C-alpha cells in the first residue's frame, strides 16, 4: 500500500522517471526501506492502470517521465488523512518465538528475552546515533533540510517502534518472573533462579532481527 502512496507523494513534487523515484524514495526513508527498480515499475504500472499517474514525455536523457493525475492527487489526500490500519495485526516473528519458547524443554526463556533485548537496544543505539547526526544536520540547516527532517521522522518512528518492543520484552520478563515466583511458592523450586543467569553473556545470538519490519506488500 505505502509504496504506492510513497511514489504518488514523490510525483506530486514534479514529473519523475522510474529509477529517479527509487533513489528519492530510499533517501527519504534513509535506506531503511530498500526497493528494487522492478518493484517501482510494477507499482507505476498499477497506478497508471488505476488512472492515478500518466506518462508525460521524456527528459533529455530519454527516460520516460511520469506525472501525477488529479485522481492521483485525490488518492494521496485521502491517504494522508486516513489513519494507518491497525485491524490486522502484523505477523511478528518475535511474538511467535517467545510463545513457542514458553515451556520448551532446555530453553531458558529469560535468556531468550535478554538476548533479544540486547539486540533491540543495540538497534536503538544505532538509530539514535543516526538521529543525533540528523539532528545536527537539521539544526545546521542547508539545502537538504527537508529531506533531513523527513529522515529524522522516519528514524524516530523506528526508535519508538523499537522502544515499544523493548518495553514489551521488559513486561514479558517481569510477568514470567512473577509467574515463576508463584510456581516456586507452590512447591517446585523454579529451575531458573536469578543466579542462573547472573553471568554477563555478551555472545551475539544469531537471532533474526525483527526491526525494521519491512512489511512489503
Amino acid at each position, binding site marked *: 500500500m505505502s509504496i504506492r502512496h510513497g511514489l504518488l507523494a514523490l510525483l506530486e513534487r514534479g514529473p519523475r522517471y522510474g529509477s529517479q523515484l527509487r533513489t528519492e524514495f530510499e533517501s527519504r526513508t534513509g*535506506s*531503511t526501506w*530498500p526497493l528494487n527498480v522492478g518493484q517501482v515499475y510494477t507499482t507505476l504500472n498499477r497506478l497508471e492502470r488505476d488512472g492515478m499517474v500518466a506518462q508525460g514525455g521524456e527528459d533529455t536523457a530519454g527516460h520516460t517521465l511520469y506525472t501525477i493525475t488529479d485522481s492521483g492527487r485525490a488518492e494521496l489526500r485521502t491517504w494522508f488523512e486516513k489513519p494507518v490500519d491497525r485491524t490486522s495485526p502484523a505477523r511478528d516473528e518475535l511474538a511467535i518465538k517467545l510463545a513457542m519458547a514458553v515451556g520448551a524443554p532446555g530453553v531458558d526463556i529469560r535468556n531468550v528475552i*535478554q*538476548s533479544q*533485548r*540486547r*539486540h*533491540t*537496544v*543495540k*538497534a*536503538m*543505539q*544505532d*538509530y*539514535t*546515533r*543516526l538521529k*543525533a547526526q540528523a*539532528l545536527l544536520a537539521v539544526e545546521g540547516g542547508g539545502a537538504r533540510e527537508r529531506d533531513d527532517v523527513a529522515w529524522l521522522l522516519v528514524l524516530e518512528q523506528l*526508535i*519508538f517502534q*523499537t*522502544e515499544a518492543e*523493548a*518495553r514489551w520484552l*521488559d513486561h514479558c*520478563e*517481569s510477568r514470567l518472573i512473577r509467574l515463576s515466583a508463584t510456581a516456586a511458592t507452590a512447591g517446585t523450586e523454579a529451575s531458573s533462579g*536469578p543466579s542462573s*543467569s*547472573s*553471568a*554477563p*553473556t*555478551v555472545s*551475539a545470538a544469531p537471532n533474526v*532481527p525483527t*526491526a*525494521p519490519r519491512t512489511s512489503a506488500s
Partner: protein
Amino acid sequence: MSTQQPVLQLQNLTRVHGAGATEVHALRGIDLAVYPGELVAVMGPSGSGKSTLLTIAGGLDTPSSGRVIVEDTDITAASVKELAALRRRSVGYVFQDYNLIPALTAAENVALPRELDGTSARKARVEATAALEEMGLGHLADRFPDEMSGGQQQRVAIARALVGDRRLVLADEPTGALDSETGESVLALLRSRCDAGAAGVLVTHEPRFAAWADRVVFLRDGAIVDQTVRSDADSLLSGQVAEA
C-alpha cells in the same frame, strides 16, 4: 576499545542493606569500567540496584565489599570529608528533579562546587559562565531556578556536574520529570559532553534514552546480566542498519 585509563572502575562491588531477616542484596559483584568519552547507560527493572550503583560510584553511599576507583583513586576507604572533596573535584551528580539550589542563580549553581572548593567567587563565576556558554546556556546565567523550565534546569545541572576538572557525570533518571522532546535535549547535551571527552553513567528505565549511550548495561537483581557493545559508526551509514 580505549587504551585510556578508565575514569570510573567498579570492582566486584556488593552492597547489602539491612541485616538478618531484612537483609537485601542491592548489588552483587558488579564489575564496570567507564572510559573517557564514554556514556554508559544502566538499565534494569525497579529494585535491580541501578540507583544504589550510582550512589556508591559517587561516594554518597559505601559498598559492603568491593572497590570503587575514581580517576586512579580508591575511594572505598575514603572518609566522609574526602568523599565530599571527591564530589567537589571529580564527580558530578544530576538527579531526576530539583537539582538546583533555589537560592542561587544558574551561574552561581554551576560555580558552587568550585566555590565550596575554595576558588574565589569571581574565578568560579568566570568558569561557570564559560561552562554555560560552551553548552549554549549562556542566556540562563543570571536566572534563578524558578525562572527556568525543567529542561533548562537539568541542562544547567549537567553544566554544574562537569564544571572545572570534573570528568565524570552520574545522572540518575535525569529525564524522569521531563517530556519526551525536552528529555531528548538533555540527553543530547549529555551525549555531546561525553563526545567532548567526559565520562558519564546514566541510570534510566527508558530504553529510548538509554539508546543515547555508547554502551547499555543491563542490571537484574543487583548483577550485570548483559551489555551492548558500541557498534562501528561506519556500519550505520552503509545502509545495513537492519543487520546487527
